[in-house]
């Protein structure tokens, strides 16, 4: 297992390099003089010239890339022009809201997606299977922000059950905080729920066709035992990968959910940065989420390898 983890960690290096390169080149694609674009049209020519030197734009492209990479490894993602603050510290300020939202959404997606997928596979080609697969297909066919808007229309404007925007306050009690998170979490979870349901269902159907399930049944084992001991244990291993990958997508999806529900997280920060052309902040946030996503993928691969006896054994594990 140690060898597998080491190999997987080494594989991250070129991926990280290319991620940095892509983001660096994206910044270079900004039309016009980056210093002028970043400072805005009101900046004086002296300020622009000084800023060009500060950004290292007077140097060659490889030298600029090297300086960018070394800055990133020192935790220097630049300075936000609109907030006049360090990009990394801004990200860490907003991260808790986004993480809370993403984790709530992921929990909701897993807790509903996995049982729904299992149930649909057990009722294969029956009405409940059709109902669940239609629901799951709907999940992957709608934009996250529209789900949020519909939840506001139904639960806030029509029924008046829940608050629509902003964060709750702990001073008003735990329910206030929770009630402000329910709708955004559900909106964010909806798509992942569909993906997890579809994947769990097809994984279960695949496993249920295997010879060892037939053998277990022919031994006379009860259905519950066949399902719990043989089918689920094997069917859920690949589901782990899909669930892990969803966390990365949820972090990105938060950009939209936070905009609809006016939550002060990373997503809202990014939308504001895009609207006000704060490119360094956009660049820093994209890099941060991409790196987070890479490490989530690493963790998922390790968990998958740990759960999958074939990989575990091929690397000399127990």
């Amino acid at each position: 297992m140690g060898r597998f983890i080491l190999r997987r960690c080494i594989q991250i290096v070129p991926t990280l390099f290319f991620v940095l390169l892509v983001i660096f080149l994206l910044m270079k694609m900004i039309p016009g003089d980056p210093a002028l674009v970043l400072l805005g049209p009101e900046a004086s020519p002296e300020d622009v010239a000084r800023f060009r030197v500060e950004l290292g734009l007077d140097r060659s492209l490889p030298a600029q890339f090297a300086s960018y990479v070394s800055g990133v490894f020192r935790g220097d993602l630049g300075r936000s022009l609109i907030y006049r603050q360090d990009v990394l510290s801004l990200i860490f300020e907003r991260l808790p809201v986004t993480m809370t939202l993403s984790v709530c959404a992921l929990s909701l997606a897993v807790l509903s997606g996995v049982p729904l997928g299992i149930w649909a596979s057990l009722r294969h080609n029956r009405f409940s299977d059709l109902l669940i697969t239609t629901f799951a297909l709907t999940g992957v066919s709608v934009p996250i922000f529209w789900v949020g808007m519909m939840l506001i229309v139904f639960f806030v404007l029509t029924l008046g059950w829940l608050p629509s925007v902003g964060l709750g306050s702990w001073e008003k009690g735990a329910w206030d905080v929770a009630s402000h998170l329910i709708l955004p979490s559900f909106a964010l979870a909806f798509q992942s729920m569909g993906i997890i349901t579809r994947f769990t269902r097809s994984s279960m159907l695949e496993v249920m066709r295997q010879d060892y399930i037939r053998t277990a049944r022919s031994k006379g084992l009860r259905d519950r035992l066949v399902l719990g001991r043989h089918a689920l244990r094997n069917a859920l291993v690949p589901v782990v990968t899909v669930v892990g990958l969803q966390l990365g997508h949820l972090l990105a999806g938060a950009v939209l959910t936070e905009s609809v529900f006016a939550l002060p997280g990373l997503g809202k920060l990014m939308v504001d940065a895009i609207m006000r052309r704060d490119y360094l902040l956009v660049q820093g946030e994209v890099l941060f989420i991409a790196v987070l996503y890479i490490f989530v993928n690493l963790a998922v691969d390790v968990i998958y390898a740990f759960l999958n006896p074939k990989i575990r054994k091929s690397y000399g594990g127990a």
Partner: protein
Amino acid sequence: MSGTFLKRFFRSKQGVMGLCIVLLNVALAFGAPAISPFGFEDMDFANTLASPGVGGHPLGTDDFGRDVFTRLVWGARVSLLVGVIAVGIGAFVGTTIGVVVGYCGGFPDALFMRLMDALLSFPYILLAIAMMATLGAGLFNAMIAIGLVMVPSFARVVRSSVLGLRNEDFVTASRVLGASGWWVISRHLIVNIMPTVIIYASLSFAGAVISEATLSFLGLGIQPPTPSWGSMLSEAMPFIDKAPLLAIFPGVAILVTCLGFNLLGDGLRDVLDPRMRS
């Protein structure tokens, strides 16, 4: 072969349903000038935020008094156009990369696949947003950005198919007979991976439509006054309490269109994928 394919496809209920929705969408998009009762920029100031049916507006009007039905129908054009071009870019570039590096193997394969991995490290929509933030808003840039973010997944899918085919007997036989690499790729590999590309393209179409809506919702896609379903939703947001239907119609249009493409993709997979057939 094609007769059997059609027979099998028309036996798939979901595939046929998907095809009908897609064809309806195409008809609406092409027939927009004939179907729409008003111009998409025409403003009826006497009937702003009107309910469906009022003032001859079948689905009501927005805050500028523009006909919602007309804008929906014209929005279908934008969605289909972005879908076709973006999926086309993703499929063409991704397939080319996947086939060439998969067939060649070695260093080009390792290099390109690491680059593809890096691009796949970005959550899909985030990369599109980042590209649009730097390229600037607009229809053309949206198509390019969505198309480019699709390249890595097409390349991956195609490469893995090519790796499976590379050592097949018919490829080896062709090489033994003296065929060039280009001949093997164009005459044997492309033909055999086409079903995979078609299925994946059909399923990616829904992703492209949603991505376009998302970019337009954030103000990065189609610019006003040209209607797009995403920008219609963004414009509906401030009036969600007064006119919720403004937010419902464009969303339903996106949902139905994406359902159509997903159903069609699933149907095609059932017919074209030999594993699903068995």
